[in-house]
């Protein structure tokens, strides 16, 4: 709830538009023929997930899903949900905070964690492409 308030403030202050403009271009390669406003919702959702605010991403994700469902884009629904669920994250905050209560040097996991979550993101895209092609 707190985070959706934050997102609303950021929307009004034009921060979201600037952020999503850069993300929309690579996302267009994945979601080829969908409208601009759905793409904005999707990129907002993925950005929130990437920054670790998964609570804030829920409402924009539900918006995007409802629009995709109304237009009947079935493959795009699968791509969007699996990308969302792959958990591509910059910093694993709750793991780090728990780990730092046990030991002082808790930041050694950041690099391997980032590499592994990048791997899972790329694998999700590859499997999506395979599934769309052989369907």
């Amino acid at each position, binding site marked *: 709830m707190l985070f959706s308030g934050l997102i609303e403030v950021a929307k009004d202050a034009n921060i979201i538009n600037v952020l999503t403009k850069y993300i929309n271009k690579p996302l267009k390669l994945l979601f080829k023929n969908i409208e601009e406003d759905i793409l904005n919702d999707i990129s907002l959702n993925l950005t929130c997930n990437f920054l670790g605010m998964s609570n804030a991403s*829920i409402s924009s994700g539900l918006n995007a899903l409802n629009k995709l469902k109304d237009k009947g884009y079935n493959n795009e629904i699968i791509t969007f949900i699996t990308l969302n669920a792959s958990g591509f994250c910059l910093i694993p*905050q*709750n793991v780090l905070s728990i780990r730092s209560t046990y030991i002082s040097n808790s930041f050694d996991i950041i690099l391997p964690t980032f590499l592994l979550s990048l791997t899972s993101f790329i694998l999700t895209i590859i499997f*999506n492409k395979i599934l769309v092609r052989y369907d």
Partner: protein
Amino acid sequence: MISSYIILIIFLIVFITSIIKKNNTYTSFIKGVKEGFKTSLKIAPSMFVMYIAINLFAQSKFIENIFKSSKISVDLISQGLFRPLSSSASLSFMIKIFSKYGADSKLGYISSILQGSVDSSIYIISYYLGTCNIKGSYKCILICLLVYIIIFIICLIIYLLL
């Protein structure tokens, strides 16, 4: 240090930009909070059902009895099995590993990497699809499970190589 402040920094940046641009910061904040409240009411039933079912399974110690005599620690295996289903259940297994073997140990290292690098994918899929009433979700679950299994195997390989 930075990671514990990152949320606060994001909040400050957003609020200060909004004040500089002379928007109605408080009004739009309250409007967003209202919308978030509506969303959480909407997803509450499907989340509640998943939560109850997973906790029933996690508390029953069914898995611990099956994998009693394996080479790799039982706690790591049960954490791996619960990771795609529920964050909190696998987090409790991670804390168990930390207090049993220490966070500095090989097991603690691997279990924190496993906890951080993937998300509770099946849980996310079920609440999105359940809230929006979309059918035919087997493809989503298939993709996410395949990816998760590969990541888990990579983690186990790192554990055996270290």
